[in-house]
């Protein structure tokens, strides 16, 4: 009945399916504004994260990339805006979100071992009082293996290198068994081995049908790593598949004078090249 009505209204089934997909998207943000003091860091931003894809959030320093995600997850207060997660209110979907904060946001001299940090990912499962059993430890260990850190399980977290710390954070997120993974600058200041390890885990997650959103700063790898891109500079600049949204024009719009024209052309060309390769295969 509704279908018939919709057709009479001139809405095609495709459009309807589209609307349903957007309504149930892993993360939809509408009109989100966040400000520190009187200066908005993020202004009236809309974002729709596509399910089962890897999305990069890209923009210059101070463009509000991290702030937008933190506000979307309720970590910092928003001035205005609506956020839906899997088509429902954020609070009802907390268990399906795994967040990986910036490495620098915690004190690494905190008295805790690698395995204990990963065990924090089992927080919901353990609840307040349940005892930690061998099964929990085994689950945590499996997550450490996935990021190549199993040998480090009993080390104090302060003894790890930056890249290793980042992988422990990712292992903690894996332990949650979530459907939506949100990572804040996971590749900032890490070694090449870590970058490879993280990206391969993220690609595995995508193959399992999970959705991955990453705040990313390295323009050179965007086209290689991600399906979709979201360009932001306080306001939304562009959103969509890398081929269409990550172009010389959109980059220019996001970065303005901060990128040399040559750089912009190069990146735009790289994205185009990537597209043609994808098209060819």
């Amino acid at each position, binding site marked *: 009945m509704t279908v018939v009505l919709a057709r009479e209204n001139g809405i095609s089934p495709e459009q309807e399916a589209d609307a349903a997909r957007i309504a149930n998207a892993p993360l939809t943000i509408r009109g989100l504004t966040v400000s520190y003091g009187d200066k908005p860091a993020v202004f009236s931003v809309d974002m729709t994260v596509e399910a089962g894809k890897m999305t990069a959030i890209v923009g210059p320093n101070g463009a509000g990339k991290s702030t937008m995600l*933190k506000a979307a*997850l*309720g*970590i910092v207060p928003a001035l205005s805006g609506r956020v839906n997660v899997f088509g429902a209110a954020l*609070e009802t979907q*907390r268990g399906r*979100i795994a*967040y990986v*904060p910036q490495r620098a*946001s*915690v*004190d690494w001299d*905190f*008295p*805790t*071992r690698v395995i*204990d*940090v990963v065990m*924090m990912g089992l*927080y*919901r499962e*353990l*609840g*307040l*009082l349940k005892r930690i059993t061998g099964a929990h430890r085994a689950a945590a260990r499996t997550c450490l293996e996935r990021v*190549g850190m199993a*040998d*480090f399980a009993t080390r*104090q977290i302060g003894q790890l*290198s930056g890249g*290793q710390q980042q992988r422990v954070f990712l292992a*903690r997120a894996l332990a949650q068994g979530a459907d939506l993974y*949100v990572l804040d600058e996971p590749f900032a200041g890490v070694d090449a*081995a870590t970058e490879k390890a993280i990206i391969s885990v993220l690609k595995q997650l995508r193959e399992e049908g999970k959705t991955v959103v990453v705040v990313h700063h390295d323009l050179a790898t965007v086209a290689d790593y991600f399906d979709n891109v979201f360009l932001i500079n306080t306001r939304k600049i562009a959103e969509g598949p890398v081929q269409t949204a990550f172009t010389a024009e959109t980059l220019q719009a996001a970065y303005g004078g901060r990128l040399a024209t040559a750089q912009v052309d190069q990146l735009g060309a790289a994205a185009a090249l990537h597209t043609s390769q994808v098209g060819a295969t």
Partner: protein
Amino acid sequence: MLLDALLLQLGYNASLVAIGATLLGASAGITGTFLFLRKRALVSDAISHATLPGVGVAFLIMVAFGGDGRNLIGLLIGSAVSAGIGLWCLNWLTRNTRLAEDAAIGAVLSVFFGFGVVILTVIQSLGVGRQAGLEGFLLGSTAGMLWNDALIIAAGGAATLLVILLMRRPMTLVAFDPEYASARGISVSQIDMLMMALVMAVTVVGLKVVGLILIVALLIIPPVTARFWTERSDLVVVFAGIAGALAAFIGAALSASAPNLPTGPIIVLVSFALFALSLLFAPNRGVLAAVMRHVRFQRQVHLRQGLLALAQGQVIYEPLTLRLLRRHGLLRADGVATETGVARAAKALRDEHRWALVRADQSLEATAALYDGLREIETVLTDDQIRDLDRRIGTPREVLA
């Protein structure tokens, strides 16, 4: 005398004080650990100083209703209310102004304390009620401790411990990584409030024993002491409880064993003694261990460098290196390597080559992370792995001088 005190043989009051203080020490140490881990240790100082006006006002209210103003429960409720107000002011200042938390703590602490002193002075000049002993809340007074007082401490301590047992996971999570905790739906501000409420409870029940000026020592010194001995937060909590209980018990016994020794300050001093011992002698984080580690490390570096220099035929100038090589029988007095010296030097150079391969090998990352130029490769790799490395290095090449 002291032994008698330690064995609770010094009479009813002394035993009561010792037991009460021990319970307080344990619960203060455990509660304080979470503040310490959250890096908000000084908030407890603001809370404790903010109790004073409440004590005075509660006294006045009780006198106005015809009492003598000495009801301990009434005074403690008063102190809790004013500490709560102080805490609210502190939170409001940090959240709604540009004032940083340390500045806000300074402001709240001094204003509330000043206000409290004014009220106590006014009470003295009024000459109403049985006001003697009110100043005991400043530095603690255990002389007239009653069974009921000990009971209040025991009940308060048990209640805080129960809450901590129940909430230890979210509190640890918030202390370590508040952003992550918040993304998981834990309200950071509520957990912070809970921590503050626990600190307030411990402060209020501890007022009578150590007084508001020194209670902060009971909250902070035990966790800092405990931190020296472990790298695990759950063990820091347990050790802090033990350190707090131990300091309080020994302190109470000490003060009971000699006349006119104030209980609270003695407990704090004992607590400090435990801290100083830990600071000096703790196995990994202690000062002595650090110094010894440094000296040992320096010698190992010199020895290793000396061996590598020998292997490569370089001249050694460093006096310490020469001395160490000679002492180990690797170098003769005339500067020529002994037989063992030559062998050890060759081995050192070969190990360097082995390590270079390990560090270039992605699959051996965990092992490579252990490389510090000194570690014997046999301690981290199996014989088979080393043989495999040696195959890749090939036969020993002649080293050109």
